[in-house]
């Protein structure tokens, strides 16, 4: 492993790098009391890792100078019982026992049993929602501080979905790839691809161009299914039923295209280290293309209704606005960041697979509101369809037999993939025998949940479902 800095130097380098425009893709503790930061340089299309030893069980927090570190430092405190001194809002992230005995930073409590930011005043009231919500969605707890209908502040407490996946996948190699497929079930391809890249990098495996094309097709189909579903759900949340109804069906059509490839609507069993588990035949590619062309026309028809309906635009525009400055400060990812005018996208900034050899132009909107988050998704849908049409003929490929390559010993690998919610960052480390001994997953939701809380400031509480849907973040991806 590389040089280990002292904590002061580490802290300065991370803070300076982030204020100089680098992305804090991950910040976490390793079991041996070492902090690690993964800094992405979008201009140079590269990433670097920095390490620092923690003396004792505390270190000076980065968050006051680097708000992006906020959630990461809370996670470090909860997992390894290392206190970031001076952290402005230190509380648990997932409400589990720390990884070492004798927790000192947080007392053991139940889920969401913690301090919530409170506004005091005669006409202030507090609204608590969840963990069980009204719809068919995952659990989480939301606390609103309200003045009449106006939301002054939203505090979000998650952790209800915590399954202990991150450590289990290290200790259980037989289940490993299946854990990846279920880290966030709607992002099976995104997370599994990020994992495969790490294994391939550590194992020195070469991937055929056709398999790379097929993987890119699968990743875009996943984006299409979720974006189409979100556009429909956004329409549903404001009571505009035509687009809700049409997109509900279209989402399934895209899922069924993925099922053509591998039998599973969510892409289970499609990927494996080295390539694909199942072949993409000419017949499948042809069938997929004809279905895609039919779905393209229907999706355009369904979504353009939104932009032509004044009552829809009246609800979407100026709702849940996040400024570009705040998006940068919080380190938002994916369509939520691009809707604020940030042209960040791993397909351009940290390219892998087919993107190593092609230019990619991210979809960007400027206004940072629900409208922008919806429009960004629609532009991305069109881009994804165009891309699949172009590369599908080159994606016909055979399956790869299961390979168990020897992984490079004492190595660390970082992969970044642009899932439909944004940058998925996986970090894998091997021990002296070439076995995985540490794995870290950063789902884009982990970076984006604070964005939702900020978007609700000054909104009517009745705008929460709409704002929430415009982010559509993963609970289990956050809670792992």
């Amino acid at each position, binding site marked *: 492993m590389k040089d280990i800095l002292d904590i002061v130097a580490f802290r300065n380098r991370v803070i300076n790098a982030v204020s100089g425009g680098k992305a804090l893709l991950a910040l976490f503790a390793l079991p041996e009391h070492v902090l690690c930061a993964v800094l992405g340089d979008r201009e140079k299309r590269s990433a670097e890792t920095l390490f620092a030893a923690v003396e004792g069980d505390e270190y000076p927090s980065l968050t006051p100078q680097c708000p992006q570190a906020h959630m990461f430092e809370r996670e470090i405190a909860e997992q390894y019982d290392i206190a970031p001194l001076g952290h402005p809002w230190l509380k648990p992230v997932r409400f589990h026992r720390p990884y070492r005995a004798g927790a000192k930073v947080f007392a053991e409590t*139940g*889920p969401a049993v913690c301090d919530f930011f409170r506004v005091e005043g005669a006409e202030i009231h507090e609204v608590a929602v969840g963990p069980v919500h009204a719809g068919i969605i*995952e659990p989480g707890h939301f606390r609103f501080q309200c003045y009449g209908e106006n939301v002054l502040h939203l505090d979000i407490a998650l952790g*209800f979905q915590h399954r202990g996946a991150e450590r289990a996948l290290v200790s259980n190699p037989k289940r490993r790839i299946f854990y990846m497929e279920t880290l966030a079930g709607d992002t099976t391809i995104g997370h599994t691809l990020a994992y495969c890249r790490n294994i391939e990098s550590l194992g020195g495996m070469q991937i055929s161009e056709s398999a790379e094309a097929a993987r890119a097709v699968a990743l875009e189909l996943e984006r299409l299914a979720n974006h189409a579903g979100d556009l429909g759900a956004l329409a549903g949340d404001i009571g505009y039923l035509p687009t809700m109804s049409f997109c509900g069906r279209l989402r399934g059509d895209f899922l069924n295209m993925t099922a*053509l490839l591998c039998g599973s609507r969510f892409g289970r*069993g499609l990927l494996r280290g080295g390539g694909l588990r199942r072949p993409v035949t000419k017949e499948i590619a042809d069938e997929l293309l004809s279905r895609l062309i039919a779905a393209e026309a229907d999706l355009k028809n369904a979504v353009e209704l939104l932009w032509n309906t004044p009552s829809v635009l009246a609800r979407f525009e100026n709702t849940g606005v996040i400024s570009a400055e705040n998006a940068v400060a919080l380190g938002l990812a994916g369509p939520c960041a691009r809707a604020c005018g940030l042209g960040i996208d791993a397909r351009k900034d940290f390219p892998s697979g087919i993107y190593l050899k092609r230019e990619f132009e991210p979809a960007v909107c400027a206004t940072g509101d629900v409208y922008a988050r919806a429009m960004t998704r629609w532009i991305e849908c069109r881009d994804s369809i165009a891309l699949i049409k172009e590369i599908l003929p080159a994606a016909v490929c055979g399956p790869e037999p299961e390979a168990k390559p020897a992984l490079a010993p004492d190595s660390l690998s970082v992969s970044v993939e642009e899932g439909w919610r944004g940058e998925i960052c996986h970090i894998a480390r091997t021990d002296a025998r070439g076995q995985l001994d540490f794995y870290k997953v950063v789902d884009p939701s982990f970076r984006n949940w604070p964005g939702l809380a900020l978007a609700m400031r000054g909104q009517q509480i009745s705008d929460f479902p709409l704002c929430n849907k415009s982010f559509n973040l993963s*609970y289990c991806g956050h809670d792992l």
Partner: protein
Amino acid sequence: MIKALMARLAQRERTVEYPAKEPVLPPRFRGRPQLRAEKCSGCGSCAEACPTQAITAGPLSLDMGKCIFCGLCAEICGEGAVTFTTDYKLAASSRQDLTGPEYRLARALEKKTLALFGRSLKLRQVSAGGCNACEADVNVLNTVVFDLGRFGIQFVASPRHADGLLITGPVTKNMEYALVETYNAVPAPKIVIAVGACAVSGGLYAGHEQTAGIPPQIPVNLYVPGCPPHPMTILDGLLRLLAKI
């Protein structure tokens, strides 16, 4: 308004004709496993590969409740003793009915409960550690494609309005209390449906210290296997429970 009407015409009728007609599933769909004990050499490579200890060799048996339908066993078996058919009908009334060797499809609710719920069943869904795949494929039943409402089944926002729970996920320790409270809030008589390998057996998350499983005070009336189950598998189970097929 005219644009919305034109769009409605262009989008056509999309509801599947099920149950009058059998649904079309993707050719690679992995449904009901088929075991051929006579072809099994007893080598145990399937059990060795299985991530959830669902399959055992000698004698060959497969627990559909634990199975995540990854298909590794079929891929690894050189003898063809394990294959996955495209049969989507998998739901069962008891855990034992999923363990094999004879799988038994779900039976209708007993007469008195059926009289209450047969024509109108309101369910409250609780995700307790589900990865959002089961949740998504339950949610999809509400779209025009499946049109769950035509069978008299509806998902409601409050357990107080519900006749039962539909549970997904391995039931994390952090959701156990909320699940029990939600169950207690449903007025009796009530039914419970477990959807997906995680809810049925813990699935991939069985044996984790962070998961608890559905607690024994919550009796389950319908088990729907799969990871996630196909929407047709869930719908088939619900309709069997209500004696509609």
